[in-house]
């Protein structure tokens, strides 16, 4: 009996020590480590995968050009699995285990909110390709957080402007029951009145909804002029199909959560003719040559397409810009975490990214204006620039 217990305890000991030892990070060579934490699995993988590709592309380009001061740039990647919890764990891992100099990610507003206290305490710059307003406000508590993604408030402002032009007075909102969806709803609540529009009805859907006809029926009976759709995931495609089936005449105008190829492929013809908030990179071929994003978008899209076989999505562009900003910061500083943050805050002025022209400052870690967004209309082949923009 005693022998067995001795063996059992030895098994524990062996397991414990072996596992601890295995988890030690490998001896580091002199490389510059950049972290990326994105949702490549889970409900937001349609965002995360293109973003991951874009960051890979940026780092690859940098290394092919000789690295930074002769040293390679190493991308350390963690999958945040579309949950806040895994985002927090990924952040800790990147900061404590891999000891990265800055982090690009995560893919969703909810994840960003969760990661903020961690990067703030650890003093590592975080560049979030998300749109939540609270990610960079209040600025006094967001010293280490940057958001190169078009803000949800900008997106809503664009929608409201379009609504004004179209003569819509009463809006309904259909949003996903998560942080992204609630951000859109909160922005709309805040900005609608100022634009002369009333928000008459609010409906929501959980991520695994398969039938949104009840919500659409309720919006229809509220008699709204248009429905603002702000959500992530498969249900957003189902909404359009359901609208067709209900023969809903009310237009559905979508936030930028739908400006990606996964959605466009899934929804098929049901979305044709509907307006969607998008980004220049998606309709770059329709931009005039003088447009600041035209050249960089063309270059990015071509390279992305050559390497990955599909066109990049809007937030892939944001991730690309984020990675490139970090790389530029590395080039112009000594590669120290605090210096990178300071560079971002002070030296990103009239920085031409794929997403837009960035101007960060101590008061503004978003850096974009509403021209970073364009209204698109879904057509047979994808989308085109809406006449409203021209």
């Amino acid at each position, binding site marked *: 009996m005693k022998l067995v217990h001795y063996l059992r305890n030895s098994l524990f000991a062996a397991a414990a020590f072996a596992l601890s030892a295995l988890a030690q990070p490998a001896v580091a060579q002199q490389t510059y480590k950049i972290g990326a934490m994105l949702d490549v*699995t889970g409900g937001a993988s349609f965002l995360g995968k293109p973003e991951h590709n874009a960051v890979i592309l940026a780092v690859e380009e940098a290394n092919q050009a000789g690295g930074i001061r002769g040293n390679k740039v190493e991308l350390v990647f963690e999958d945040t699995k579309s949950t806040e919890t895994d985002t927090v764990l990924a952040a800790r891992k990147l900061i404590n285990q891999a000891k990265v100099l800055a982090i690009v990610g995560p893919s969703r507003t909810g994840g960003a909110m969760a990661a903020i206290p961690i990067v703030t305490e650890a003093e590592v710059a975080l560049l979030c390709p998300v749109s939540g307003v609270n990610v960079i406000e209040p600025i006094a508590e967001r010293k280490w957080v940057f958001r190169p993604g078009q803000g949800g408030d900008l997106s809503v402002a664009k929608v409201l402007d379009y609504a004004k032009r179209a003569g819509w007075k009463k809006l309904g909102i259909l949003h996903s*029951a998560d942080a992204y969806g609630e951000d859109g709803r909160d922005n709309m609540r805040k900005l609608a009145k100022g634009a002369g529009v009333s928000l008459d009805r609010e409906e929501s859907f959980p991520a695994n909804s398969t039938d949104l006809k*009840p919500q659409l029926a309720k919006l229809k009976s509220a008699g709204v002029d248009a429905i603002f759709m702000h959500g992530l995931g498969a249900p957003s495609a189902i909404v359009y199909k359901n609208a067709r089936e209900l023969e809903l005449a009310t237009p559905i105008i979508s936030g930028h959560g739908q400006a990606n190829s996964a959605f466009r492929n899934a929804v098929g013809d049901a979305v044709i003719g509907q307006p969607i908030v998008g980004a220049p990179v998606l309709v770059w071929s329709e931009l005039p040559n003088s447009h600041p994003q035209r050249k960089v978008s063309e270059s990015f899209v071509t390279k992305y397409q050559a390497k990955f076989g599909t066109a990049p999505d809007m937030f892939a562009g944001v991730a690309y810009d984020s990675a490139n900003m970090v790389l530029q910061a590395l080039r112009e500083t000594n590669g120290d975490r605090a210096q990178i943050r300071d560079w971002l805050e002070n030296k990103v002025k009239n920085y031409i990214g794929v997403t837009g022209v960035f101007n960060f400052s101590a008061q503004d870690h978003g850096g974009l204006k509403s021209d970073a967004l364009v209204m698109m209309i879904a057509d047979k082949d994808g989308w085109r620039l809406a006449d409203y923009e021209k």
Partner: protein
Amino acid sequence: MDWEAIPQFLAGGLAIGAVYGLIGVGFSLIYSTSKVINFAQGEFVVYGGLATVSLTLFNIPASVALPLSLAASLVMGGALQGLLSTARKGSNELTYIMTTIGVAIALQGLAHQIWGTDYKTYALYPQGTIKMFGASVNYATMTILLMTAVVCIVLWVFLFRTMVGKAMRACANDSRAAQTVGIRPRRMVLLAYVASAAIGGLAGMLITPSQMMSYDNGVILAIKGFTAAIVGGLANPFGAVVGGLVLGLIEGLGVGLISSDLQNAYAFLTLLLILLVRPQGLFGRAEPGSAR
């Protein structure tokens, strides 16, 4: 209160309810013959749908892809039963539950590997809707309801009019007594698994064209499917269908009249209610020997 929209809520509820019912039938068949709760039931649905998508991507027409997919489901069901039969003697119910949970997790992971994370769909139903009693009913809904009815009829004929089916019912009733008249419980259990997999796969094939399917849908479908089975009475497959429809209606009305936020919560509230008030379900019998 949106009175006019109620028919729409009901129609939607019936449609999802029928699907829950089909999945519930699978649980019921397996439980009644082997007393096992098959947590991998939802994966049959997922694989049925996704496999059909893959076949159609090879330009195989739906009329061929569907039967092929169904055949694959049959094999899957048989394989699962074969796996479970290797369990050591003396394994109790908990062991089987945990095994099917393990299989479900592994299958979901495998589906992720094969089909990735995107939602997939294929074309099956013609476009358009029919207005019925104040609701817009699309072809998907009609087909699903029709097929559910067909499955019920086929199942009834099988269980009550064929020898094999009667043998299966006998086995479900009392497997030791059934053995004394020459029925082999192992065969009946195998049959139950194969049938459940086929019905589950069929459900997957029916819903993928309208709702899309992704590798991780299995869990929530399984949970709702067996809520349906419990509401109806675990050992009664027809009860499962009714249970599914009831569940679907509750969900549809709940989303429509109360709040869309709580869509999944309605199923669990129903489950909890039934377990507390009438654990044997609508059509089940109280367990004999429960003195309390």
